[in-house]
């Protein structure tokens, strides 16, 4: 057969071709197995196992609550500060968990990436899923605490929660694809991610309110701060868990439009991450 006949023949496939994130859904079964693997091996060999998923946020909460809520004079400006704090911590935890997982997904699976062709985006996606499942116990805990303090059902809080989770997942997957693919050739990327995560807690209204930024920062900085996807996500978590039980506290005036801009930024991040990943994935096998 001559070359053109083969290149034009739909029966023939180029080895290692897939359709990016969308192509993953053809490998749905493998994705569920990778998820299962990530979940069962996560705390393998540790006596307390999944309890660690509760201990870490609890310790974090206690530390911040004692230092910021008590030692530093308390946060009298925020009603029910513990709930405010806890919902912020849970949002940031989801972000750090998923970003860390997705960034190291390719290097963690290097035995496979080097030897067998699979759509490589499967690994960050499975890592994202593991992060999400890991987050659920914390979310349940937060929900129960909010319920004790008089939380009652409403559509706005529910939608805000779902939107917040989606926003964090999209943003961290975008960043994770970007840094994860660079991390294959230059392990510096992982340290950069650690830096981002260090900032995440402080660059979003977890320990203080948005009003503090508004009064102290210039207007342009305040606007940038508010459209940061993590700020938007934390505020969505506040809307979901804290606002229903502390309705008297002031809320940012343009929250909806800010959230929409943040969502656009997150989607753009995902697009850039996906393009970077596609560009670099061909060289993963030789760099690992």
């Amino acid at each position, binding site marked *: 057969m001559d070359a053109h006949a*083969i*290149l034009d023949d739909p029966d023939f496939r180029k080895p*290692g071709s897939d359709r990016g994130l969308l192509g993953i859904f053809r490998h749905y*079964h493998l994705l569920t197995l990778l998820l299962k693997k990530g979940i069962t091996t996560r705390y393998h060999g540790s006596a307390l196992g999944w309890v660690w998923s509760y201990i870490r946020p609890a310790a974090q909460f206690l530390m911040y609550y004692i230092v910021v809520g008590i030692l530093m004079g308390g946060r009298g400006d925020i009603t029910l500060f513990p709930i405010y704090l806890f919902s912020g911590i849970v949002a940031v935890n989801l972000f750090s968990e998923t970003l860390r997982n997705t960034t190291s997904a390719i290097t963690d699976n290097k035995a496979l990436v080097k030897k*067998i062709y699979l759509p490589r985006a499967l690994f960050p996606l499975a890592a994202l899923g593991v992060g999400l499942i890991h987050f659920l116990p914390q979310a349940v805990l937060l929900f129960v605490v909010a319920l004790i303090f008089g939380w009652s059902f409403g559509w706005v809080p529910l939608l805000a929660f779902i939107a917040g989770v989606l926003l964090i997942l999209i943003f961290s997957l975008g960043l994770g694809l970007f840094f994860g693919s660079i991390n294959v050739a230059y392990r510096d990327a992982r340290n950069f991610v650690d830096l981002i995560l260090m900032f995440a807690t402080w660059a979003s209204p977890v320990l203080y309110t948005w009003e503090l930024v508004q009064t102290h920062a210039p207007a342009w900085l305040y606007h940038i701060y508010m459209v940061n996807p993590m700020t938007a996500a934390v505020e969505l978590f506040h809307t979901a868990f804290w606002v229903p039980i502390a309705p008297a506290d002031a809320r940012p005036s343009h929250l909806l439009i800010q959230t929409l801009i943040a969502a656009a930024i997150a989607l753009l991040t995902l697009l850039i991450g996906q393009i970077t990943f596609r560009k670099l994935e061909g060289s993963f096998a030789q760099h690992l």
Partner: protein
Amino acid sequence: MLSTSSESVKPVIVFNDVSKTFDIKHAQSFKQAFISAVKRQESTTHFNAVERVSFEVPQGQSVALMGRNGSGKSTTLKLLSGVMDPDAGWIRTRGRIAGLLEVGAGFHPDLTGRENVYLNAAILGMSRAETDARFEEILNFSEIGEFIDTEVKRYSSGMYSRLGFSVAVHTELDTLLVDEVLSVGDAEFRKKCEQRMLELQAQGKTMFIVSHNAAQVRKLCERGIVLDHGRVVFDGPIDEAIVHLQANTETVTTAFPVVGHIYDYYANNPAIFGAPTGPQQEARGVTPGVYQEFEKGLITSYVPGDGGGPLTVGLGRGHFLPVYLKHGGPNGEWGLMRSTPQGMLENYEARTMEFTNGTAVFTLDEGLHFKPKQ
């Protein structure tokens, strides 16, 4: 050229003028990359792994890809499976291709045999229903028995490869890629593997086998492609290919074969290490592993206990090699190599190198010291 099939039958594998060049990157961090950019040093070396390779494989044919170490066999197989993309030329395949590139590459040590079978089968492209339907067959073939529900980290290396091989040869496929894995298990199991491969052939499956074992490929394959320095030097009936390969090896002295992970490392840049001066050996230190000595260096490989793949590191001529060898090398108190030397003496930094039992540090003022791990 063999052509038993009629012109109307489409081939299953087509390589058209395929080349692959590796850029061996010397910089491992942004800093090193930046420094070499400033100094205008070449931070990479080029290495032609595969050069202008063309061939077609018709459906149902069994082909052996042969050649000396570093001739580009593994790269060709990686290009074929899609793990790597060619730099020039194109490759097309037809039907389902499953790679037996490394037995149990997809196994996770903390999962049970059963979980790993499902995972590995899914990696090779099987659905849940297909795996369910074949599970009994896979289990029987592997002879793992009741240990199937034990974590695979407790398996012996023989059990591990038997299970991996068993999954691979029971996948739903049209073309099977095999990379030097037919040497798994004991003689009896090897025979069973060959039997199974012949069965698959009889079912009309195409096979693409990379092997050193002339006797085995003679049994399994009808056609041989011989590679040398990345180029096809012979393509034709298997017996002639074997003769060609053996005639070829006489002109080059490779008294000791370089195989496995050490080969993967060595093949990236054989010039650093030169020819092997001894066979691959088991290290007798605290950490189990293997090593091989070369004219100009040494390569060690072991599996760290962190659940990742094997760690293979090579050391060429320099400050560390003679002192390491003086302290017993891989069998001595330093253990196996964990990293290549880091740090630039030119910048007055200490040059350090990690070993399984500690760290070796070289400074211009104090010479070389070994700090054992606490």
